[in-house]
């Protein structure tokens, strides 16, 4: 069963009506070609030619670049190779003091500053899109939250070579 391509486009845009989401997209069994269709739609929307291998978030992808597999932002900025923690290549803003956290939520509804807790915002160095937010105690390592096993996915799960020419 394949979900209608226009529905997937709307799903990505966040414009799919609830009735279609409920009736066509949420129920089992799921669309068996969802990954391929999603990649097609995303690929058409970016302004560069590198083949998207894995979508990481709304603005970030693992792509097959000229120098191998890279983490690349929608705006075209390349952050690092696919195996590395892309967050280490971001711009960061840390909110820890009351005046910084109070911009987000009212007083008493933010972490107590006496607990040295941080809201870390990670921005794309190219376009300053907000790529991730961490809420962690001071001194906490910046986790690499997802390391996709691209070879296994394409070769063993999809049964095809990784489309990166490599």
């Amino acid at each position, binding site marked *: 069963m394949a979900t209608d391509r226009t529905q997937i486009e709307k799903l990505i845009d966040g414009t799919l009506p609830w009735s279609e989401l409920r009736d066509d997209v949420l129920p*089992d069994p799921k669309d068996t070609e969802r990954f391929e269709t999603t990649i097609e739609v995303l690929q058409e929307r970016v302004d560069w030619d590198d083949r998207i291998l894995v979508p990481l978030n709304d*603005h970030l992808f693992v792509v097959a670049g000229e120098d191998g597999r890279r983490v690349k932002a929608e705006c075209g900025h390349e952050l690092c190779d696919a195996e590395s923690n892309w967050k280490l290549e971001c711009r960061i803003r*840390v909110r820890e003091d009351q005046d910084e956290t109070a911009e*987000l939520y009212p007083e008493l509804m933010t972490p*107590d500053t006496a607990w040295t807790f941080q809201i870390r915002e990670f921005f794309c160095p190219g376009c300053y899109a907000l790529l991730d937010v961490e809420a962690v105690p001071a001194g906490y390592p910046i986790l690499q939250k997802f390391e996709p096993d691209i070879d296994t996915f394409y070769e063993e799960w999809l049964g095809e070579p990784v489309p990166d020419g490599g």
Partner: protein
Amino acid sequence: MSSEHPERAAETDTDYDRVDPPIGWDGKTLQEMLDESERHLEETDRYYGLDRLEMKAENPFDYERMFARLRGALVNARETALHISASAIVREIGELAFQLYTPEGDCIATSTGIIVHVHTGSLAVKYMIENGYEHGRTIQPGDVFCNNDNDIGNVHTTDVHTIVPIFHDGELIAWADGVTHEVDIGGATRGHDQVSSTSRYEDGLYATCEKIGEDDEVYQDWKDRAQRGTRTPMFWDLDEKCRLAGCHMIRDALTEMVEEVGTDTYKQFAREAIEEGRQTLESRVQERLFPGTYRDASFMPAPFEEEGWNPVSKKNMLNHLPVEMEVDAEGGLELDMTGASPPGPHPYNCAEGSMQGGLWVSLTQCLLHDGKVNDGSYFAVDANFPDGSVVNPQDPDYSYHTSWGSIMPTYQAVWKNISRGFFARGFREEVNTGYSESGDTIQGGGFREATGEYFAIAPFDLSCQGMGASAVRDGLDYAYTMWNPETDMGDIEEWELLEQGAPFLSRHIKPNTAGHGKYRGGSGWETLRVIDESFDVSAYKHVRPGVTNSTSGMHGGYPQAANYSVRVHDTDLDERFEEADYPVSDRLPGDLDEQVDGDVVRTERGVYFPTTFENYDLMYYHMGGGPGYGDPLDRPIEALVEDLEDEVYTPDVVERVYGVVGELDEADREFTVDEEATEQRREAIREERERESRSVESFVAEERERLQDGDLSYPVRWMYSGVFDRDSEWVEAFREFWDLPEDFEIEVE
């Protein structure tokens, strides 16, 4: 052989033949069955070594009909039993569940409800087997067992299981297990999820896989012990009858089915159903996730320095709940909590079985929607809850009263990990950033002036929290809780029947609770209550997290707002009520102070310990929002207009975070966008991001220096120190990340 208790048998209309070991299938003891099951799993990775689901393949309709019949019997038992007899918590929001287990204790099917117990009953049955109940205490038709010992197989002390063996032709063919959440379980303080407990000895009434009845009748001495050991004996009695009635309904339904299909067919079905559960999870993983490694971490604050009663707990503590998951090439799922904090002098310690239960609660809501959840999925996941950690203390001495304080934050991290997999595969609709953790709002009780009778305060409208956003829509507003996704808020009138001395003054949307993002988290709500015509009232508040966040948002979304506490004593409401003039809200923190004269006690903590309340004192609590998804600047302006008009956010917050500027007509709830100012503000936010951010490299260098200077709060040092003491693998990775010397330590006095 006839019953040894003919007079009781006559009373209860039972006539059971006594059985002697072996009571398992085909002449085996239960221990032999358990050993065989474990051996097959060890050798083949498959339940009973089943390579092929023969019945499912050859007689699919019969197979599915049997599963549907059993599942239906369990759901029917739940829906019916709660109307036969049950306390308000059980009846109103369905805080109960029924499970069916194989003789060796593996779950075949479960009802709806608090399905966190899929595996806890399993562990209790295995405990009885491994401790020789079959031979010593004996397991007889008509027996009734009870367990709420967390270290063996339970989530928290206040969940009580009734377990009934089901026999057919002299063989034990299954176990039925019914579990309900009690309003009160005894213990150091009133309430069902206690905050002050620091060890088992303050937790209350415990039954350790105890035989509490025979010939379908509960022993009088057990009834007396429970009646005298809890503060709400009537509710205890109602719930015990509910559990027992449900188990007997399941027994009848299973017996009828086995007589119809034959014992051998049932036995084959039971094992195939579990193996199918195992295979289903693996295939779902391959269908919807992405192979690779996923990491996240949650944090659980225990702000007890000022509140704690016991000297050992009078400190601020922060629990570390890291989750690394691996999806392998075969669709296997591994979950590893290496680096979790040690157990401590707080009620948030959590047994391994409860952590497993949290996994099933989560998986049934994201990977296994079709109801075929059983211990097959347990066998499909390789989970490591490290021995001796807060998520598997392996020590009954700790308090486990509020183990949800570890389960709920942990599964925020699990859901995010799984959601990253969904997103990578294009299943954006399945992404869920998490949820608001319920905590336990107000708990306690008091006595009515008119009757002198005790009333409990245990509102379970806490089951309506804000849900996390997905990658295609906002989170559900004030209508979700992770531990019982079918719950609703319950009618105020119903809660007031139970909690007669603490009527509600209001329920109201709580603005600014929803986590920010392209898709925002679901909103929370608030309520205000007053003490009325009562005496000797004490209550405590237990909502998490307050002083920190426990989780983040996803893909640029923010964590939801934190919680806080406010209560008012010695108020001026005595005179004002006659004029129907009373406060209704703390809509924005501090609003309440303007509406009442009295002693306002307000703190950042979501928690206060048992406190005395007098008539006309006010109790306030609010439920949180869910985490957000995506960059807030990607949120459409029209969605923000709706948020403002619905009071999800206030204009100042929307202007600062989302950059939408305009005028709100409070009376008509209409917001008019100032398009030019909005454009300018959004541009200014982008410029602020550029101006106020820096390279991660410089942040890391500065943070390293801070670590070496020890410039961390006590609870954060307490967290690192606990992990440093017990987990060299995590500590090694920590030192490596920060490029710290091998002898770097974090200590706390």
